[in-house]
């Protein structure tokens, strides 16, 4: 019964999306203005109905209703509660339903709260949002119905991929999804503003909270995904430049650029065409990413949901939305005037420079990701990896970080470089001193790592400079957000550079009782014993690790075997200290009965993820700042309107 209700509600929501699109189009014509009043309530209703459909699917998964095909294929009655819940979106159909749900709910919220944008631009935006949603509704209802029943209920479910049965991963895809889909709102705003030729500060202010929100989720999603790959794949690496990872990085890069150009447009009325372009590009990258992951067009170490036919469908949607938006851009962009101007030394100029660098990184990541396909078209099979990505992205990233240290100190419109000599000179001296120290004391550290280690402390200090001379309690939240996020970049950079410069690795075949030295750690394999969990069994190694001759800590790396469906997974064990992480992996048993063990000592590696968390926190502070000032403004205008009304009587 729940499945049928879910399906019916989904169809109704799709019909409302169609209505929203048609009413929006008519309302934008000279004679159809009265239909415009329909668009907002329809958008809200559509959001409510889709949320109900999603709730229905969640219920089916939580109750493990095996008469529903999707549940039978992806769930199992013996799964822990949390993975039953995660099973809802841990598959193609469910994730697509989640996609439209987030999209429609976000559209409903825009319809409810957005009051400052010109009404026709808002209607065009909501119509655009409905247009994008309709494609996904069609995909869901015609090609991947999540509520399909089996002719007779399955005796038991098939289970969820063991690699995915991990708390971190249960919430990593939806986090990224919220980010991807949040960018669809930015896309709709950009399209709406292009349609009504209304690219200005009001549009940027309306779009900014959505971009910020999406960006926060993308940051968290990427950070969590990186940590997940680090500790479950058991390879000790934290970023592999795999197509799936690049697919999540590219929208983040575009969203970062969009966020910055959005704030220029909002406060300075400059960079109009550029902001609209980035609004389209950011969502394009979400769609391209989804397409690359789902179509299986590129070989990836973790392609879970590969299906070329679904890929074609997403590609068709991509062509319609992105091709359409870019055509509209080509037609309209020359009518979008340039906006306010600024001098070469100004905050705008620094932001433009950084946006160009971000787009440069985006370009090389996209090129690197597609390169194997490109050369295969010419008859050569290649794979592109860190030797390409690391140095080439550094060419853009290093100047970007230098300008990032300076930019926030500059004034809008016009400034004199001489004004900020000292706040720039001190961090620069610190960086130079660190670089010199590394060259003298650790000459074997690679150039890129050395630069990263040197830039990081300088950048962190420079990023805090905008706070100098301010009363900290009266500093706007948005400024705090910027400072925290920029410091987060410095922290993450330090972690990355330290990991690549100072990691030590040890592979050893060990008998119980054997010891090894890994960096400052003494590790001893004490024994191996079988253990059992709720739906897995494992070989569990007991490793005693002592840092620099201190008290030993017990670590338990495992090799887990899952029954439903059958599969194996290594479960690494980590010991985190303030200055780094010890990483232990239990490998296979060799022929001589010794166990393959792998150990890494990675100084300061957790800073990569602390940095990621700081960046997201910065975004959150900025978002809170924006939203609270917006709420205050709404309350104030509401009071004025109320008083006027009373005086009028």
């Amino acid at each position, binding site marked *: 019964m729940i499945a049928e209700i879910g399906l019916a509600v989904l169809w109704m929501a799709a019909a409302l999306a169609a209505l929203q699109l048609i009413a929006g189009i008519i309302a934008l014509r000279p004679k159809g203005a009265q239909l415009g009043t329909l668009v907002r309530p329809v958008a809200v209703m559509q959001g409510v109905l889709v949320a109900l459909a999603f709730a229905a699917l969640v219920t089916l998964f939580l109750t493990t209703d095996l008469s529903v095909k999707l549940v039978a294929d992806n769930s199992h009655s013996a799964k822990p509660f949390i993975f039953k819940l995660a099973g809802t979106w841990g598959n193609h159909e469910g994730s697509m339903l989640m996609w439209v749900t987030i999209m429609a709910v976000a559209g409903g919220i825009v319809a409810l709260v957005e009051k400052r944008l*010109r009404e026709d631009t808002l209607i065009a935006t909501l119509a655009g949002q409905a247009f994008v949603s309709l494609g996904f509704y069609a995909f869901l209802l015609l090609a991947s119905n999540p509520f399909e029943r089996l002719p007779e209920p399955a005796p038991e479910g*098939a289970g969820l991929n063991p690699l995915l049965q991990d708390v971190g991963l249960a919430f990593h895809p939806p986090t990224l999804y919220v980010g991807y889909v949040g960018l669809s709102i930015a896309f709709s705003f950009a399209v709406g503003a292009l349609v009504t030729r*209304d690219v*200005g*500060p*009001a*549009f940027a202010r309306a779009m900014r909270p959505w971009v910020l929100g999406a960006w926060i989720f993308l940051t968290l999603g990427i950070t969590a995904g990186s940590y997940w790959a680090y500790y479950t794949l058991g390879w000790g690496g934290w970023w592999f430049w795999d197509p799936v990872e690049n697919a999540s990085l590219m929208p983040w890069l575009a969203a970062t650029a969009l966020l910055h150009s959005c704030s220029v447009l909002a406060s300075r*009325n400059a960079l*109009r*065409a550029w902001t609209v*372009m980035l609004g*389209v*590009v950011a969502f*394009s990258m979400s769609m*391209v990413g989804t*397409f690359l992951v789902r*179509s*299986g*067009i*590129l*070989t990836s170490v973790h392609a879970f949901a590969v299906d*070329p036919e679904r*890929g*074609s469908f997403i*590609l068709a949607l*991509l*062509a319609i939305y*992105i*091709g359409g938006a*870019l*055509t509209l*851009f*080509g037609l309209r*962009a*020359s009518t979008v*005037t*340039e*906006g*306010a*101007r600024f001098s070469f030394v100004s905050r705008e100029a620094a932001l433009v420079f950084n946006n160009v660098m971000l787009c440069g990184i985006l370009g090389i990541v996209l090129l690197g990701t*597609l390169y194997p*396909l*490109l050369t*295969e*078209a010419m008859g050569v099979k290649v794979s592109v990896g860190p030797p390409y990505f690391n140095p080439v992205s550094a060419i853009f990233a290093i100047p970007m970080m230098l300008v990032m240290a300076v930019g926030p100190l500059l004034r809008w419109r016009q400034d004199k470089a001489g004004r900020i000599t000292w706040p720039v000179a001190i961090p620069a001296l610190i960086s130079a001193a660190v670089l010199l120290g590394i060259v003298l004391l650790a000459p074997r550290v690679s150039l890129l790592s050395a630069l990263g280690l040197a830039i990081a402390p300088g950048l962190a200090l420079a990023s805090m400079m905008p706070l100098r001379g301010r009363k900290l309690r009266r500093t706007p939240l948005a400024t705090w957000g910027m400072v925290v996020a920029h410091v987060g970049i410095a922290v993450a950079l330090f972690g990355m550079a330290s990991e690549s410069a100072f990691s030590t690795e040890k592979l050893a075949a060990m008998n119980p009782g054997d010891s090894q030295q890994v960096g400052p750690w003494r590790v001893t394999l004490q024994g191996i014993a079988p253990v059992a969990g709720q739906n897995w069994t494992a070989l569990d190694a007991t490793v005693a690790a002592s840092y620099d001759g201190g008290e030993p800590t017990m670590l338990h790396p495992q090799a887990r*075997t899952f029954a*439903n*469906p*059958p*599969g*194996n997974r290594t479960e690494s064990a980590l010991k985190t200290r303030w200055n780094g992480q010890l990483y232990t992996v239990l490998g*296979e048993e060799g022929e001589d009965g010794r166990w393959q063990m792998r150990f890494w000592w990675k100084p300061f590696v957790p800073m990569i993820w602390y940095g990621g968390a700081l960046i997201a926190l910065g975004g959150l502070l900025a978002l809170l700042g924006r939203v609270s000032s917006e709420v205050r403004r709404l309350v104030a205008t509401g009071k004025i309107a109320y008083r006027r009304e009373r005086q009028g009587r």
Partner: protein
Amino acid sequence: MSDPRDPAPKNPGTKKPGLAMWLPLGLFAAFFVLVIWGLVRPANREVESAFIGKPLPAFDLPPASDDRPGLNTTVFSGKPRLLNVFASWCVPCAVESPQLAALAQQGVEIDGVAIRDRKDDVARFLAQNGNPFARIGKDDLSKVQLAIGSSGVPETFVIDGKGVIRYQHIGDIRPEDVPLILRKLAEAGS
């Protein structure tokens, strides 16, 4: 600036590079052509290498016929073996049976996994086409099939003496494929 309907400030002297505005669309078109090519190119890469070099996942299947035992992972130790994924309802599986028989005659040990099958049907199939299998496991929900990266029937895997998948043959084994499979078995044994 507060009224968005104001015409935007004019910047005398800035040219509007009309053509540059079409550049993004051009780049997107190039991307589109590339991925369309990627999607339609001959697909022989699909599952091919994904599971090669990986150990078989642990499984324990009940027997699919009355005169052969079921199949579990413990048998894959010692010398290299073939693992044949088949079904009585699959026509190419019947077509490849002479090749399997030939391989069995040369001393190759072959284990079978019957996909979504019934005992009676398996018995009839084996009576008609010969029985080259040492063991046959019954995989009713395609669990093992999916876990070893097989997406259809028939498929044949070369498993080495440590239970590691060394080669995957997709589709029926033609007479001309037999030498290749023997070579892969020899390589797996060395």
